[in-house]
């Protein structure tokens, strides 16, 4: 009886966005009297961080500090349309819509600044700290707060912009099923190191090496956390979570945290994560979506590592001690005595 160590890998290509009857998201942006740019969206942040990404895209495009951006996702009844935050589409669709809206608002902002500073709008630039200034003449400048006040009370202008990203509908070719389903694809590879106890059948994931090609990591800390939190979920799918043995009769199935097995903080592998950036031509500042894919690669990587460790090839999740032991038994039966 021994603890057997094994290593396995798996790779995944994952589509960004989906395409049924066309896939749009819209964004509206306007400046308040004191120069806060309100980004109105119907894109729901359920914790994944789309508000942060939308604020970053707006601030970068406007050339203003992120503190000047306020993202409002308050109400899907009254906000501009969004298909929703799913299909790993949020950063891509919403990011693009916000950039388009912010670019239009930036145009108006520079026009009003041109009137205030009595110069041509094409000669203006933003310094990223809140000032709009004449290129090469840094003391000819106006702060966005004063600018917004002037726009409202002197010039009668709205500093605002509209944005939309539409993935156009693509119908499948009847003969081949061929269609244009996504906007780009992110890629990942995970290497898992596991230890299999051939007496108890327990599998422990010791280490995960995650490499993600994400187009552009708009927020590297959030992207890394998505990779590692998602990998934890992958470990959870691989080794713990199931509605079996009750499925398809769910009468006594686990319905809550008390009955549903998940790895806890003591079951964590050491993770090493690397982000690779190959900007996507149609992505917001090159970004692709990596929402859902992060739970995927660890599962087959762990299956392959179990095979490497003990020769048992498991094809149903989760890889429970029972399944491992049955696999080991089957291998022993095959062996000539």
């Amino acid at each position: 009886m021994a603890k057997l160590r094994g290593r396995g890998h798996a790779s995944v290509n994952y589509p960004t966005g989906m395409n049924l009857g066309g896939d749009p998201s819209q964004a509206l942006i306007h400046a308040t009297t004191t120069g806060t740019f309100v980004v109105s969206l119907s894109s729901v942040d359920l914790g994944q961080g789309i508000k942060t990404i939308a604020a970053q895209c707006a601030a970068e495009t406007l050339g203003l500090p992120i503190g000047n951006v306020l993202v409002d996702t308050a109400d899907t009844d009254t906000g501009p349309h969004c298909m929703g935050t799913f299909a790993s589409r949020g950063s891509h669709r919403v990011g693009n819509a916000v950039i388009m809206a912010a670019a239009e608002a930036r145009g108006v902002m520079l026009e009003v600044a041109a009137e205030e500073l009595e110069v041509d709008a094409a000669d203006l630039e933003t310094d990223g700290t809140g000032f709009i200034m004449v290129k090469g003449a840094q003391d000819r400048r106006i702060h966005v707060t004063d600018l917004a006040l002037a726009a409202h009370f002197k010039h009668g202008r709205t500093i605002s912009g509209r944005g939309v990203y539409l993935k156009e509908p693509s119908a499948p070719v009847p003969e081949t099923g061929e269609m244009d389903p996504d906007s780009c694809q992110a890629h990942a590879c995970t290497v898992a190191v596991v230890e299999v106890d051939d007496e108890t059948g327990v599998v422990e994931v010791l280490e995960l090496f995650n490499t993600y090609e994400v187009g552009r990591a708009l927020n590297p800390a959030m992207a890394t956390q998505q990779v590692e939190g998602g990998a934890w979920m992958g470990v959870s799918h691989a080794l713990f979570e199931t509605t079996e043995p009750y499925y398809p009769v769910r009468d006594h199935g686990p319905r809550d945290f008390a009955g549903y097995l998940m790895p806890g903080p003591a079951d964590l592998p050491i993770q090493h994560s690397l982000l690779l950036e190959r900007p996507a031509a149609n992505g917001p500042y090159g970004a692709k979506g990596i929402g859902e894919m992060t739970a995927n690669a660890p599962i087959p990587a762990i299956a392959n590592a179990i095979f490497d460790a003990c020769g048992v090839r498991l094809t149903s999740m989760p890889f429970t001690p029972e399944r491992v032991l049955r696999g080991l038994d089957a291998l022993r039966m095959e062996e000539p005595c």
Partner: protein
Amino acid sequence: MPSQIVSLVVNGERREFIAAPGATLLACLRESLGLIAAKRGCAQGACGTCTVLVDGRPEAACLVAVETVADGSVRTLEGVTSGGELDEVQSAFIDCFATQCGFCTSGMIMVAEALLDRNPDPSEDDVIEAISGNVCRCTGYRPIVIAIMEAARRRREQAVPR
């Protein structure tokens, strides 16, 4: 049994409110006192997101009938912040990026407070054991463990007299 007036010391202040028989501490904190940092995740003691300190001990407030702790002292996340300043655990959670959706954060911070109160120099295993009743579906736990270790370090450094 009629409703009754319950008195508790909440975050250092005596509070009185009317509670229906069997009302949970969590429901009273959230609905009668407006303290909504403690969250209702599972309402059955399995997720830890409702954790508050009762007389210094971490408890799942969803399982505590409020009359059983009458006249006791309760500390919630709202009572951790003193004078608008984040404490070491809160700021370490931010600096170590130990939160994503944030739903588990309040419970995690409260178990960390209880741990550091009784053990200022915990090992990683101590931290893991302390948070093992708390579910996080986002972070993979690692950043939370790191944040609590960091908070302990900062708190020890502050305790050293200059």
